[in-house]
């Protein structure tokens, strides 16, 4: 525990040192302010932009898109995983697809999706779902595979109904692995949606960043960038802590 704490302290010190170094380099002109602006300016610009209310629309647009994609991916992924687990023949057929799915940069389908669905929210949602669903599916499959046959036999001996077997036995057993799939799904949905907005879109935070870059508004660009990265880190961090807590409760109970 003390070792972990020491590592944490060193980590914070290293990160703080890097930020400070960047600040000094920018202030003294070693790094051209046209390339990178000092971190303190980034924070100031982020606060200005977010509190001014200009971004409200982009923020709701982006995060609602991510939320829709995430929820859809979880629903489709758990359902698909359960179906594949049920019909092993189907699973044999789909297996090579799942194994090599993440080697294909899903992102290259985005231009085709835009052509198919128009420049709106729809292609972004589909892109997010496409990149997040297989992760949930794979983790659902491995979670269901991990349920030991003894427990299922126990359920049969106790004459549990299928719903109760699912709720009391299968779900608690599969949950840790399923949860790591959810975590991946969130970061994939986030990356997919923001990347899509960044490359080709008319709204959203990703678009705002690329717009600021193209109109040479460095200050605004860095502020927005910091905001997006902070939100991403916080969202992932919450799931990470939650997962740790689940694992601990499991090992305790």
């Amino acid at each position, binding site marked *: 525990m003390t070792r972990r704490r020491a590592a944490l302290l*060193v980590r914070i010190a290293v990160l703080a040192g890097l930020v400070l170094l960047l600040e000094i380099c920018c202030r003294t002109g070693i790094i051209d302010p046209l390339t990178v602006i000092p971190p303190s300016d980034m924070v100031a610009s982020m606060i200005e932009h977010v509190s001014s209310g200009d971004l409200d629309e982009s923020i709701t647009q982006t995060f609602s898109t991510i939320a829709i994609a995430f929820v859809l991916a979880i629903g489709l992924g758990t359902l698909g995983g359960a179906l594949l687990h049920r019909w092993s023949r189907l699973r044999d057929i789909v297996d090579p697809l799942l194994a*090599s799915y993440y080697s*294909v940069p899903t992102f290259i389908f985005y231009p085709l999706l835009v052509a198919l669905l128009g420049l709106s929210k729809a292609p972004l949602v589909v892109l997010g779902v496409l990149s997040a669903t297989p992760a949930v599916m794979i983790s659902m499959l491995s979670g269901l595979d991990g349920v030991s046959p003894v427990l299922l036999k126990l359920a049969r001996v106790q004459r549990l109904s299928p719903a109760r077997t699912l709720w009391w036995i299968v779900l608690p057993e599969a949950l840790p692995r399923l949860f790591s799939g959810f975590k991946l799904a969130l*970061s994939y949905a986030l990356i997919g949606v923001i990347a899509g907005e960044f490359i080709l879109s008319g709204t959203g935070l990703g678009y705002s*960043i690329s717009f600021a870059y193209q109109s040479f508004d460095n200050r605004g660009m860095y502020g927005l960038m910091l905001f997006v990265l902070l939100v991403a880190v916080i969202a992932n961090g919450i799931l990470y802590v939650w997962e740790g807590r689940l694992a601990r409760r499991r090992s305790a109970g």
Partner: protein
Amino acid sequence: MSDLSLENSLSKRASRGRIRAFDTAVLTLLILALWQAIGSWTQGVAISPPFQTLAYLFDLFRTPMFWDNAWATLYAFVMAYVLSSLIGLGLGLIFGVHRFTGEVAEPILAGFYTIPKVTLYPVVLLIFGLGLSAKVAFGVMHGLVPMTLFTLGAVRSLSPVLIRTAKVLRLSPVRTMLWVLLPACLPDVVNGLRISFSLTMLGVLIGEMFSSQRGLGFLLVNGMAQHNVPLSTAVVLTIVVVAIAANTLMLRLGRQTAHRAN
């Protein structure tokens, strides 16, 4: 008796191979059917149907324009891939051997892995300027972290017996590295190389899609902008086939090395 069981297992393996070939054929047909359905449902506005795309692709292969762009992508990709694998391997070994540094670095790396790095692309462009080096840097940004994390995990989970044996045999550090550490870590390193391959490719392609004048990513976005549907579909097909082929090859290689390590 043993001959019989051998023959039996051989025929079993052959029939399993046949079933797998059948599955692959079914999957390919399903994907082609889906592709054809989307193509004809949208009447070729978004995606051109399979046969048309293949015909277009054969014509495209004969134009120097295509090869020019393909070489540009390949060149940037190979540079980024070599850089990210070598640096990742080095960092992973250091973080794995020196435990405390590893404990400090791992969460930072894992955090960097999950953020949307696309948003950082303008910074890369501002630092490296438009062109090859920005694409390469962006590819490295994507591919470096998984390579480092996989190598780190491999070194950390090595059984201590191996290192103790090397000590007992008084192997020099270089020989320990070459004869003990590297062979033992090889399966995980190959896995890292595989993941790093696809992410480096993603980084290079996104770089080309956002602002570049050459490369397959540029060709894809350009085809879209000019409403040249067969062109963008053909480019997507090329990338998908290359990615899947490389992944399958490296999966097989990884399985072989894991088999040998056991």
